[in-house]
């Protein structure tokens, strides 16, 4: 396996060099009659070779071939098959290979699609994509710590970190990597357009679906990571502003800016050079994120420095990318100038612009605090991040409310006010109940009080949600009237024919719901901790309107794990909901114990079955938007005692629901017929723009 893997990678590197040379000469041949079919076949060939190397690693994991160091480090025989496969991306070397596998796959797909009709733009893009492939090949082949095919040292298997043995953590890295690798495509086409001096929207049309696709997977990856943190890490939250989380958030933010500037570029010929710069930035951030998470760059700056070759390759590639992109952008400045005039602040033009500024500025701040500050021996705590994230969140909600209601250049004031009526009235009506539901008694102190900001955030999220629904209702009404069709067929037709806009608005709705949940679940948690003796059957503790009654404790040897469980009956307002059994799992091989949380509430869907509520009338009794979160811990001082931690986490399921809606919205926007942009549909949408709100 070692030889198959290493040989395939080296062969892939040689073929990639051939591709670069041939594409370069094709592009420099004025008559463009250079043979290209061989080049395209070679691009697909690189994918074949990289797949072979990936397959070799897969087989090595299946066969548990410990002659390979990487296999011994990340797997062990008793692990389930899906976990053995997931171990492929558990470490740095495997992740690099997986990245390359995805990238070469995407590149091969582009080559295959354009085989019949190659063009300058695509060939430039393929050249850039192959150079990026070469970068990854160089790292895989030359850097020892990044080569998954290094022979083992003969030690036994060490197994996968127990914390990572959860379905969400199995899916989290590959979804993120699909997103990261996918963002290479808009980057390659942006540079291709600059190299080809083609300032039309062609490159944007070719890549805007790829961008949606990549952003979708990046979102999914982040959501899965948050879910995992919530149900596995056991501290009750899902976002801790940890460097690894921030690393994936930063390209996600610039990805939002990129998707929206694509729209401004395609529809209005605006923000051209800025769009190209964003595509480059997002790609660079994806590479940085890969290196932050996989090389320990941030957590241990010193350890990282000891791998000078990796540092050199990484820094060299980054500098070259930035330098070349910057040069191309400055030389093409005139050609890529903006077409529209800026006239009014009450316009889509302005909200799109502001959206870009807010996203990029926030990304820059997070990046600064995550990646730059540690070099000066300083670090931000979660509070520091929240101080910026909260006001920006408010500003962003305002933007999301305003943007769809504005026209591109100007906005009719009267119509705008009419649109703001319904959500305004609903929000005002809900304000008092929302205030009293989560802030009983306590009067507001200052405007910067986190609770006040949270309250405003909740109201704006509600306003946004209602206004998005109103957009669809009004859109369908107008369409129904114009076409003489029923309301529901008009609504259906909006979803069918204007997928990218409708999908965008559904995504906004998802954000509204998730933000409402984020405020609720971060600011209004109630919690308690207590100790009890194992022999104290019938011991009762309570929090909010929940009561827990301790029943018994047991310890079971389950092969790889020793589980200690405490059984409780859960009551709400005196009514029994069922039984839960939070546990402490001790992983023998890794000599590591973890607390496994029992969750009563909608988030329990994501938990393993033995941690869910059993018996009782759970479905009818508990609050669907609230979680009861219970974990136990052994008492270090007294082996006969156990400590219990209980949390009531309001509105948390709205975070997951909003995330699902956001994902569905992005899928809807992405949906039309594969990667190719359906030009006819785009034109249709353009022609209709302005008449119906949803089709703006």
């Amino acid at each position: 396996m070692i030889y198959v893997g290493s040989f395939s990678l080296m062969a892939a590197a040689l073929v990639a060099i051939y591709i670069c040379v041939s594409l370069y000469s094709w592009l420099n041949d004025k008559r463009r009659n250079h043979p290209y079919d061989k080049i395209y076949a070679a691009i697909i060939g690189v994918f074949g070779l990289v797949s072979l190397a990936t397959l070799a690693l897969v087989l090595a994991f299946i066969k548990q071939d410990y002659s390979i160091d990487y296999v011994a480090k990340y797997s062990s025989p008793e692990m389930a098959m899906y976990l053995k496969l997931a171990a492929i991306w558990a470490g740095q070397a495997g992740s690099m290979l997986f990245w390359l596998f995805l990238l070469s796959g995407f590149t091969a797909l582009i080559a295959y699609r354009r085989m019949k009709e190659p063009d300058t733009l695509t060939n430039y893009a393929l050249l850039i994509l192959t150079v990026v492939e070469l970068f990854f090949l160089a790292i895989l082949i030359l850097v020892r710590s990044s080569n998954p095919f290094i022979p083992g040292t003969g030690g036994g298997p060490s197994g996968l970190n127990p914390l990572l043995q959860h379905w969400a953590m199995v899916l989290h890295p590959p979804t993120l990597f699909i997103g990261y690798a996918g963002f290479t495509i808009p980057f390659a086409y942006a540079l291709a357009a600059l190299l080809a001096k083609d300032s039309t929207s062609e490159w944007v049309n070719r890549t805007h679906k790829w961008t949606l696709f990549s952003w979708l997977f990046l979102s999914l990856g982040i959501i899965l990571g948050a879910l995992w943190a919530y149900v596995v890490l056991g501290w009750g939250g899902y976002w801790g502003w940890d460097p690894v989380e921030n690393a994936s958030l930063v390209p996600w933010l610039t990805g939002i800016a990129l998707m929206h500037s694509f729209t401004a570029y395609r529809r209005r010929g605006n923000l051209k050079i800025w769009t190209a710069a964003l595509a480059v930035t997002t790609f660079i951030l994806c590479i940085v994120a890969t290196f932050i998470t996989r090389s320990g760059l941030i957590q241990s700056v010193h350890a990282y420095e000891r791998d000078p070759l990796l540092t050199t390759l990484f820094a060299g590639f980054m500098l070259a990318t930035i330098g070349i992109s910057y040069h191309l952008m400055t030389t093409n400045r005139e050609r890529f100038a903006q077409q529209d005039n800026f006239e009014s602040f009450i316009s889509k033009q302005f909200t799109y612009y502001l959206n870009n500024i807010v996203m990029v500025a926030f990304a820059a701040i997070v990046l600064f605090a995550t990646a730059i500050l540690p070099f000066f021996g300083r670090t931000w705590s979660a509070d520091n991040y929240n101080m910026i994230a909260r006001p920006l969140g408010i500003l962003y909600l305002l933007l999301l409310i305003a943007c769809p209601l504005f026209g591109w250049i100007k906005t009719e004031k009267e119509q705008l006010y009419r649109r703001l009526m319904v959500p305004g009235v609903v929000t005002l009506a809900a304000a008092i109940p929302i205030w009293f539901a989560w802030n009983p008694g306590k009067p507001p102190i200052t405007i910067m009080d986190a609770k006040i900001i949270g309250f405003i955030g909740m109201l704006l999220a509600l306003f946004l949600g209602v206004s998005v629904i109103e957009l669809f209702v009004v859109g369908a009404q107008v369409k129904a009237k114009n076409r003489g069709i029923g309301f529901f067929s008009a609504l259906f037709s909006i979803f069918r024919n204007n997928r990218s806009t409708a999908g965008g608005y559904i995504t906004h709705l998802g954000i509204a719901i998730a933000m409402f949940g984020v405020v609720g679940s971060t600011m209004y948690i109630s919690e308690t901790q207590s100790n009890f003796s194992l022999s104290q059957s019938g011991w009762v503790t309570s929090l909010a309107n929940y009561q827990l009654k301790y029943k018994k404790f047991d310890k079971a040897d389950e092969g790889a794990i020793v589980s200690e469980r405490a059984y409780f009956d859960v009551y709400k307002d005196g009514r029994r909901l069922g039984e839960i059994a939070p546990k402490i799992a001790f992983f023998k091989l890794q000599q590591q114990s973890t607390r496994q949380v029992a969750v009563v509430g909608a988030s329990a869907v994501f938990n393993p079955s033995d941690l869910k509520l059993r018996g009782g009338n759970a479905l009818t009794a508990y609050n669907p938007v609230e979680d009861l979160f219970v974990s136990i811990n052994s008492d270090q001082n007294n082996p006969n005692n156990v400590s219990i931690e209980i949390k009531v986490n309001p509105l948390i399921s709205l975070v997951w629901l909003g995330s699902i809606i956001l994902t569905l919205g992005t899928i809807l926007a992405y949906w039309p017929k594969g990667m190719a942009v359906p030009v006819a549909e785009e034109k249709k949408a353009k022609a209709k723009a302005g008449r119906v709100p949803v089709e703006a």
Partner: protein
Amino acid sequence: MVDKKSKQRLLIVTVILLIGLVFFAFKSTSSAAYMRTIKEVQDEPAKYMGSTVRVTGKVIKDTIEKRGTTYRFKIADKGSEMTIEYSKSMPSTFGADIQVIALGKLASKDELKANEIVTKCPSKYQSKVEKAKTGGNRN
């Protein structure tokens, strides 16, 4: 093309926004924690007293005490030890011999009142060098 007047208007709004953000970023950074080793803190306690510090170390066995909801334990890093006090939720992997990152205010030369505790998650953060160091823990 963007004419001069509208360019100015856009620029003014952008600058105001960015100044606001930089203000918050600056405010956050001035209260940002110092990332120091235990030894560095103990060498110059006066410098860090009262400010937020982040230290890393391995939880020393048999030092974990729990009174009510407050944890007290010692961590060790390269021969230096420090007591950590913490009363919020512990991460699920917390225990003896676990590498933790503690962030909080320095109460005395040897004690940190932590606000945040993160347990290091080996396969996510470890690089080759670190792995060699901790490899001995594995059976």
